[in-house]
């Protein structure tokens, strides 16, 4: 079966093509096409995963273009990481396809929506199968396109248009770094194949400074895609897209592509301590930075968005602390519980038609499924013992401790506390506080609750793939199947686990006290630290800062550009076109249909050539 792994991305592509071609005929039925074809992908991904476990890795490539000695290939690679990502992406995508059937039911552009979902799923699946950086880059850009289209899906809303544009531009800034990194790698190793790059790194073919530079440049691409500081601010704005999209693209899969990229190129990063430290630092900083912003936001989806940014920071911290397994493990569990949270949030929004948590309340009794499922997600992300997030977060903290990054370790601990707090702030405000309106609230249809139930189950059990008690099955498999990554499991003192549990429970308890029992005033913190509150509420003024610097700077440049264009470029351009047209005019004047002229041109031409040759003595020195 492994030989046919390439076929997995073909089905979503087919779905995209079919829906675009048949958009006139299958308006309502488009969801069935999308669901069916993504379901096929899911089944095949499962088969490939099992085949990988029994048969090991497979890499296949064919020569695509050879120029001189350089040979570019296309192909696909199945290793444990890729196989896991395949299942993850196709599973979440499949569930989101089903969920959208209910959520997007009223939308008249349902077919377009499913077509875009197909395009995105295709690109993402193809991305995780890529065996070389050229393919990775191509599909990396293509998932960016899918994300752009879906964020701007409600293009008649100004915010959606602007968010799409912002996402596109900010991720593109990161991509420039990635592209330069890839070009440098190619220049240094002469190949874009991952295997030959790793072999070159292992053989010490590159200087360490160069490795560091390349690794950091590629990490810049990952920063853009995974919404790490300072290129994070597009991700919360991307919540303008439909909620299923937020779950699929901006929580579970595409934003994790940055983490995936660093994980895929892990041997390259391991070769440079500086690069690792940069990754870990940016990750830890983003984790706590975004968590503080999430504390005070009032928009349900935005809180979740900042929480995504924060959790992605955790993953980067893990990778930067040599915790390959920890990072990938958290990537997987996060995909499940964050997709669950988004889908549950979507279900809430679907029911109450607002995203402002101040206007919600009392939904626990009215939404029999959504409430408990959201609770599961919140517990998982908070690191509540025995749920999936608990185990993966534990691994990350151990990795940071084991690597000796004590400052980062403390930051991550604080972020864990904050995570528990803001998640339960959400939970209590949305579900258990008294209802603010008398609107009739109904539970969402089955097509929406079913995917949530699946994800809820996974959010509970996925953690047991890799636990200190029952065995580190996932870690062994991931490292055994990758010849370039060493298996090392960070061991740490037992108190780390206890502290984490305490912090997580403490966060939950604090939220309980403030938002449920109300024994503490809601604003006792914000009134004590008004400045801190304002700063956090305004997201550290990062957007304003960009607006003042990059935004206005770009605008000033724009004015300069307009001026230059008007008075200099335009003059040159019209000069160019005059010249071109002039040559054409003169040339066609010569072309008068008289064969004598043609003969004369030949002879005059020959004479000129010979005259030049004679005068120059045949050569131009």
């Amino acid at each position, binding site marked *: 079966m492994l030989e046919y792994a390439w076929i997995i991305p073909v089905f979503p592509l087919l779905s995209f093509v079919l829906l675009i071609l048949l958009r006139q005929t299958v308006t309502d039925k488009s969801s069935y096409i999308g669901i069916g074809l993504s379901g096929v992908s899911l089944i095949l991904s499962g088969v490939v995963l099992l085949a990988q476990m029994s048969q090991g890795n497979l890499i296949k490539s*064919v020569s695509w*273009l050879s120029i001189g000695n350089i040979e570019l290939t296309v192909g696909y690679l199945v290793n444990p990481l890729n196989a896991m990502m395949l299942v993850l992406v196709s599973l979440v995508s499949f569930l989101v396809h089903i969920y959208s059937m209910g959520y997007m039911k009223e939308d008249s552009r349902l077919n377009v929506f499913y077509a875009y979902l197909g395009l995105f799923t295709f690109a993402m699946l193809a991305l995780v199968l890529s065996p070389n950086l050229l393919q990775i880059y191509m599909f990396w850009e293509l998932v960016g396109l899918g994300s752009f289209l879906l964020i701007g899906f409600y293009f008649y809303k100004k915010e959606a248009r602007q968010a799409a544009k912002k996402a596109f531009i900010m991720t593109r800034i990161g991509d420039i770094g990635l592209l330069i990194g890839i070009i440098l790698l190619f220049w240094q190793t002469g190949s874009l194949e991952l295997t030959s790059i790793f072999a070159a790194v292992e053989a010490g073919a590159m200087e360490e400074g160069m490795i560091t530079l390349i690794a950091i440049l590629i990490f810049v691409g990952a920063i853009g895609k995974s919404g790490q500081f300072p290129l994070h601010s597009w991700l919360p704005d991307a919540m303008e897209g439909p909620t299923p999209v937020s779950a699929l693209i901006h929580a579970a899969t595409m934003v994790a592509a940055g983490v995936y990229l660093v994980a895929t190129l892990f041997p390259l990063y391991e070769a440079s301590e500086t690069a690792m430290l940069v990754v870990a630092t940016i990750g830890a900083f983003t984790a706590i930075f975004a968590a503080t912003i999430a504390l005070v936001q009032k928009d349900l989806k935005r809180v979740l968005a900042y929480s995504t940014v924060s959790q992605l920071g955790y993953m980067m911290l893990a990778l930067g602390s040599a915790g390959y397994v920890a990072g990938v493990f958290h990537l997987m569990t996060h995909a499940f519980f964050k997709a669950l949270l988004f889908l549950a949030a979507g279900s809430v929004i679907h029911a109450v038609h607002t995203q402002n948590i101040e206007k919600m309340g009392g939904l626990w009794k009215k939404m029999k499924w959504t409430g408990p499922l959201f609770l599961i997600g919140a517990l998982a992300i908070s690191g509540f013992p025995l749920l999936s997030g608990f185990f993966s977060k534990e691994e990350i903290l151990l990795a940071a401790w084991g690597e000796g990054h004590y400052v980062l370790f403390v930051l991550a601990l604080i972020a864990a506390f904050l995570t528990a707090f803001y998640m339960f702030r959400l939970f209590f405000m949305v579900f258990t506080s008294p209802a603010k309106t008398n609107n009739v609230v109904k539970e969402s249809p089955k097509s929406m609750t079913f995917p949530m139930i699946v994800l809820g189950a996974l959010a509970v059990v996925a953690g047991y793939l890799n636990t200190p008690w029952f065995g580190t099955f996932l870690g062994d498999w991931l490292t055994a199947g990758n010849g370039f990554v060493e298996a090392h499991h960070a061991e740490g003192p037992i108190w780390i686990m206890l502290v984490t549990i305490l912090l997580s429970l403490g966060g939950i308890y604090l939220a309980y006290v403030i938002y449920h029992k109300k024994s503490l005033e809601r604003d006792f913190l914000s009134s004590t630290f008004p400045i801190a509150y304002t700063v956090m509420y305004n997201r550290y003024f990062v957007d304003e800062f960009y607006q003042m610097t990059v935004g206005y700077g770009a605008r000033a440049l724009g004015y300069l550009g307009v001026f230059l264009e008007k008075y200099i470029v335009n003059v040159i351009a019209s000069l160019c076109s005059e010249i071109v047209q002039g040559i054409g005019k003169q040339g*066609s004047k010569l072309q008068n249909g008289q064969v004598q002229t043609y*003969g004369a041109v030949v002879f005059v031409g020959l004479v000129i050539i010979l005259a030049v040759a004679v005068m120059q*003595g*045949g050569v131009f020195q």
Partner: protein
Amino acid sequence: MDLDTLLQFEWSLMAPEFTILIVATVLSLLDLFLRKEVNRNHFAWLAMGGIALSFVFLLSQLGHESSMILFDTYRFDPFSISFKFVLLAGTFLVLLLSHSYKEAGEGGYRGEFYYLILIALLGGMMMASSADLITLFVGLEMLAIPSYILAGIQKRSTRSNESAMKYIINGGISTAITLFGFSYIYGLTGSTQLNVIAQNLSNITQSSAEGLAIMAFLITFVGLAFKISTVPFYMWTPDVYEGSPTPVTAFLSVVSKAAGFIIILRVFMSIFGGIAGIRLNETFLESMIIFIGVLASLTMIIGNTIALRQRNMKRLLAYSSIAHAGYLLVPFVALSPMAFESMWFYMIAYMFMTLGAFAVLQVLIRQSESEDLSIFSGLFHRSPGLAILMTIFLLSLAGIPGTAGFIGKLNIFLGALFTEPGNFTLVAIMLIATVISYIYYFGIFIQMFFRHAEFQTRIRLPKSISAVLVICAAGTIILGVLPGTLLDFYHQHIDFNELTGSLWK
């Protein structure tokens, strides 16, 4: 020469040529003896069968070691074999295109069209294989004379007559100049055989007579420039292309032009490519290549700028083909190790995209009895399929990624930049010229997609035209997406060292 000497030559190597010759002879006899009522259009199938057979024979010669027959005047080497493929495939497609061609008022072709085209093809194949100035010249004329007749094959059309007249006069001038150049070469070296010439010439270029060698080089090039229609010998092209029947235009712009490049490569590489040049540490060809570089640049610029002003589609494609001849000279000027490969690839890509464009043009001209740009107006609404096919061909001609034309241009660019020192000026001019060409190619897109249809009639596609369109579109896209298929074939069968060795001997 007795019978034994004749029989000792390895005649089997000439099987591809013989096949064409026999089919042409049979066709001419059939034409003579068949009753008048028999439709001569069916000759096309016989002719195509002959070409296919010849193709098979040629395939069997792949990997055969280089050898010469007829007292070292006719040689079989990777160079000749690889380029004969282009000639055969091009002629095959032209025949397929001509099968359904009917000009208003005339009852289609007489049978002579088919055997004339085969004789012309035979001439081209001789040019590819010749190792002697005499055989080379015979091949050249054998291609040229049937072409003159073909251009004027519509006896009752004044335009066709005019075009034949102009073609033959210009051809005569070209022959005269070429022979003049050859006579210098012969006078300097006392031989007509290419490798003997090269040996003898190497003494000359070191002596005071080097001026004569320079003359010989330049005059011969200008003479041969007629076939590939580059500056200063390009002016006949639009007039002849416009007046000739469309399949003949296609033949001239693809097969005849390819033959022109073959002869230029053969003559200049083997005579001047291996001998010492004027300055130290370079070959004579390298010393002189700047002249060809300038001519190539002028050709690219003139072809593309004048094309901007054309509204007659055949003239437009004529100028576009002039520009493409300029592109094709770039690898020759750069003289990189990839030169043959990129020229060969580009010729094949050019064959697919140009013949495809001509096929569309032939259908539309027939339909609307006009050659004006406006025949494309609203094509997308009238016949979306045809419009999309034309889009593919035009994108490829313009060199947009995903098409064969892009890969061809990319190869040329890289080849020209990889040499030491890189030919930056030439590449820059080629880039500028390409950008200019976008304007007129995209002008056709505007007509096809954004204008209202002037003609409302439905378009019928004859089967043979559909076949040409499908083959050309498939070729253009496959070579654009998977260029490796063709390049691997080339690398596998054509040994590069042997190729250059055979030319530089």
